[in-house]
């Protein structure tokens, strides 16, 4: 399972919603196979960043590259098909579709019908296949979202606040999943849960009011909880 196709690189990124600029001159590099975390308060622009990388927003200026490939200007489904998958915030799965149908849709889109990878990370989903998305708990929905995104062997995962509102046990589980995914999947994680970030992140970017105010590449500093200082 090769995932070492390249780094995810964001350069000079300026993003605006109409007249209101939200991101200013953002630089970010996620080395292949590593997990970068993006931390910051609500409204800092973190979700905007992920959405731009995924292709849902067009930047006013700047570049987004995966390896040598330029991502700006591509439709979101093209970006997804390139192996860069966006896992939205707010635990959004299709409420009216069963877990099985959710997964089938993802399989249909990627051509990957081998669900073993999903059940390996999230065995709980196996028992929930016939339950409708609207009847899943928050944690189960998050598992389904990430499970869906894993189909098609993605090279990059953009995950937006996965642990928000989840019980500590589930957070622990997700942390483990991220650890296992590292190495063959590049990940950019937006999180407000600093203990989790301290545990799994290789690089941390602090975002404030649309700008990157700090880039911490020292793993020692991250593991020992040095991230707090930057916020």
């Amino acid at each position, binding site marked *: 399972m090769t995932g070492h196709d390249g780094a995810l690189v964001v350069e000079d990124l300026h993003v605006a919603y109409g007249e209101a600029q939200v991101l200013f001159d953002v630089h970010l590099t996620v080395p292949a196979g590593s997990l970068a975390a993006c931390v910051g308060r609500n409204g800092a622009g973190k979700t905007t960043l992920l959405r731009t990388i995924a292709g*849902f927003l067009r930047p006013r200026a700047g570049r987004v590259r995966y390896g040598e490939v330029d991502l700006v200007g591509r439709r979101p489904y093209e970006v997804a098909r390139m192996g860069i998958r966006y896992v939205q915030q707010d635990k959004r799965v299709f409420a009216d579709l069963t877990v099985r149908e959710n997964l089938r849709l993802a399989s249909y889109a990627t051509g990957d019908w081998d669900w073993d990878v999903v059940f390996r990370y999230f065995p709980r989903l196996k028992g929930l296949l016939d339950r409708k998305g609207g009847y899943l708990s928050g944690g189960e929905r998050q598992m389904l979202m990430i499970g869906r995104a894993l189909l098609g062997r993605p090279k990059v995962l953009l995950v937006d606040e996965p642990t928000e509102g989840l019980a500590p046990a589930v957070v622990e589980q997700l942390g483990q999943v991220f650890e296992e995914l590292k190495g063959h999947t590049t990940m950019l994680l937006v999180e407000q849960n600093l203990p989790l970030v301290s545990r799994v992140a290789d690089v941390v970017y602090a975002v404030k009011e649309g700008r990157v105010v700090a880039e911490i590449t020292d793993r020692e500093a991250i593991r020992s909880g040095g991230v707090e200082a930057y916020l």
Partner: protein
Amino acid sequence: MDLNLWVSGVVYGLSMGSIFFLLAAGLSLCFGLMRIISLDQLLYYSLGAYVAYQVNVSTGLTWPAMVAGALAAGVLSWVVERWVFYRIYAREITFTMITSFGVLVAGVGAIKYVWGLVPRPMGIPVEAQVAVLGVNIPLYRLIVIAIAAAVYGAIQWLLNRTIVGTAIRAAVEDVDQVEGLGVDVYRLFTGTFVGAGVLSGLAGALHGPLVMVDPQMGLEVVPFVFMVVIIGGLGSLKGTLVSAFLVGQVVSLGSLVYAPLAQMAPFAAMLLILLWRPTGLYGSTLLRR
């Protein structure tokens, strides 16, 4: 009122409802999936009728003429989707509505140009009558009802049993999420739009023999179809079916009671329902004003 009138009134209403359903289903699906009000569906309805008429007049065939009408409507809708709607999906709903209205008006103008203003009679495929509860009913009307029921069944099967249907149901909930999985949603849009066009064309072709084919037919049917759509709620297939048959019955039985007011009755019913529930009976509050 005697049984004769009741039975034929109900059947008449059901066949009207069937036509309304075919037309309204297209509108409803386009709204549910793409958040557009595709007023140009009325154009595909008219075109379906006219092409069916033309083929019938030129070749004498009846059922193939209907198919031709539906297909012609499908082709036109495909062209319009690619050239016009494709560019404007992201825009807000009033924008697409105005644009689709432009397409409708332009198309009706073109129809007037080609076929003129005079209404044309269209040959009915089946002349036979069948006895229902001892009353003679035109077989054709029963066939129309059967076709509508079959279409409903087919759409439900598509939505619930195929992967494309799953994609559509998902996209109705959240298009971006579907696209994020890697699905080309634009192909989904095109397919649905053309599907709606074919249904509208079929409605026109089927309706042709029952009324005369005339350039205004697309607009004449407007109050009824809109009532169906509003009462049933945009985006709900079941709601569309129920309200289509409801409106059909009100028109039919209403005209038995007092003819001139037949067209007004559904309108009044709709206003009452809207007073009670501004989004229709089954409609979603997905859109704010």
